[in-house]
């Protein structure tokens, strides 16, 4: 198959809940070869696993199917390929729903591939019996200590299975848990025939994927000097214009808002960064400090020189487990004396609970006065004025569900039995909801088998 000179890979969805306009406009407003979409976060996997337990046809990102329904005419007419981790814990059901919306619109013969193998929830006991401890990377505790409470377990797969799906002719690739940068790296491996030991190239694709994985966060979104960002309302989503030698240009479609500059890209490069010299992915390690950036035109930044190294023999595993209960409520306190009254309200709630034998440690309590420097607590803000109104947020957590629910009874009564000017109780009584704990672990790659299947609408 003839290799293309340049390949255009965009990210239209930085997270589940991102603007619907990202993918829609990317399909509409300029040339594009690949549209990547990221739907999964750590907590998402646990929620999806629970949905699947209740209903075997659920457990994937339903928004993705709606997005395919909406963009299908453009995707088919222009031959744009889609790579998305929308499969969650049930990629086959996601595939079925996707095929259904394609057929409904009369699009037949569209190939949809599924990557499986990341979901090890059903194999946990066998893995533990075989000697894998799946110890917590932070605390060192073995998974056996929380085994009964585990609600999902997924390996962060690499990008080669996605490339395999594209090699098999898929136009839409649905994966479960993989790394976010892998959504971009997969298409580049497929297009340029990069090999497993070409670590500099794999690192380049990984860094490209990292730069675009949060959508508009590299085109002027969440940017320090926000006043300088043009037309933020119509912000363009990022596009990687990749070359076979690993260099790439970060850009966006002409006429869209926002901007692509070295400074806007650097903002995203440092996002969720650990050791900048040793970014560990499933296919390679990457040195973020090795790259050169140059502005080669308006909204065009060329990135080159990426250095990589061999990957580790383990996959990172994302495990979630039930870790107690929490409840949170809020009230709005108007002025005058908003902050003093909010502080009194907080004291009243804890005293009334204590009277009824219900006490919480500082560690278990959340007390915030929103409007009075909550986000930057403890940091002096010169010339800050007394807030004219304050949102009081009170929360508790712990392992005794009844105690967490008891807390919920004492918030709303402040409206009639506290200081004047207490309102905003529309949410009603706070109830206990489950805390989902996150358990990062490592697993030998030899224990994981991936599977790629291709279907057709």
């Amino acid at each position, binding site marked *: 198959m003839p290799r293309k000179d340049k390949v255009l890979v965009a990210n239209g969805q930085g997270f589940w809940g991102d603007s619907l306009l990202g993918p829609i406009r990317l399909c509409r407003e300029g040339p594009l070869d690949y549209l990547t979409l990221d739907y999964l976060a750590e907590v998402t996997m646990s929620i999806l696993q629970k949905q699947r337990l209740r209903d075997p046809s659920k457990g994937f990102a339903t928004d993705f199917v709606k997005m395919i329904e909406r963009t299908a005419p453009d995707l088919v007419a222009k031959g744009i390929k889609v790579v998305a981790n929308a499969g969650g814990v049930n990629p086959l059901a996601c595939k079925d729903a996707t095929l259904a919306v394609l057929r409904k619109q009369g699009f037949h013969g569209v190939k949809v591939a599924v990557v499986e193998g990341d979901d090890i929830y059903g194999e946990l006991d066998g893995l533990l019996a075989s000697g894998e401890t799946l110890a917590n990377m932070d605390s060192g505790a073995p998974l056996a200590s929380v085994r009964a409470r585990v609600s999902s377990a997924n390996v962060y797969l690499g990008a080669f299975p996605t490339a395999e799906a594209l090699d098999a002719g898929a136009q839409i690739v649905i994966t479960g848990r993989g790394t976010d940068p892998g959504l971009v790296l997969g298409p580049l491996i497929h297009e340029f025939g990069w090999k497993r030991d070409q670590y500099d190239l794999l690192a380049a694709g990984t860094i490209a994927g990292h730069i675009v994985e949060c959508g508009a966060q590299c085109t002027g979104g969440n*940017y*320090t000097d926000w006043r300088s960002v043009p037309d933020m309302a119509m912000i363009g989503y990022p596009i990687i214009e990749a070359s076979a030698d690993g260099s790439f240009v970060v850009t966006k479609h002409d006429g869209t808002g926002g901007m692509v500059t070295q400074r806007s890209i650097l903002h995203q490069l*440092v996002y969720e960064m650990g050791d900048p010299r040793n970014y560990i992915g499933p296919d390679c390690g990457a040195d973020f400090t090795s790259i050169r950036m140059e502005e080669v035109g308006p909204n065009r930044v060329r990135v080159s020189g990426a250095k990589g190294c061999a990957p580790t023999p383990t996959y990172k595993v994302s495990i979630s487990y039930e870790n107690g209960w929490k409840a949170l409520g809020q009230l709005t306190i108007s002025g005058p004396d908003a902050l003093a009254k909010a502080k009194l309200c907080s004291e009243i709630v804890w005293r009334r609970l204590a009277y009824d034998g219900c006490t919480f440690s500082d560690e278990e309590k959340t007390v915030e006065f929103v409007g009075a420097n909550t986000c*930057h607590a403890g940091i002096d803000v010169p010339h800050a004025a007394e807030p004219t109104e304050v949102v009081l947020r009170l929360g508790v957590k712990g392992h005794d569900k009844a105690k967490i629910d008891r807390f919920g009874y004492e918030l709303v009564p402040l409206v009639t039995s506290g200081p004047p000017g207490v309102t905003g109780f529309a949410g009603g009584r706070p109830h206990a909801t489950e805390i989902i704990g*996150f358990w990062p672990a490592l697993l030998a790659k030899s224990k994981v088998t991936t599977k790629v299947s291709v279907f057709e609408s």
Partner: protein
Amino acid sequence: MPIVPLSRIADARSGDKGEGSNVGVMARSEAAYVFLKGALSTEAVRRHMAAINRGGVKRYEADPLRVLNFLLADSLGGGGSASQRTDAQGKTHGLALLRLELNVPQSVLDATPE
């Protein structure tokens, strides 16, 4: 030496990492980067963020990018869904650090765009 907030000479972005957050500080000139490597110590960051971060602070230097990356070990009030804070993902920690007031030499200010 003039006292200015860190925001005068650097950009920042932050996000969650497990039960903590990272703050990437991007110096806007080479002079600012050299100055910050000395002045923006882990101890200075730990003290400034002490009411937000209960854990330690680790610093990585990325000279070619003029970036100092700080990892705050326990800054979210519990990780993932355990945090009940308004800023459960540490999204605002970058701006919090940019409020830090520093004694910056005039020569560094002159070499660094506002």
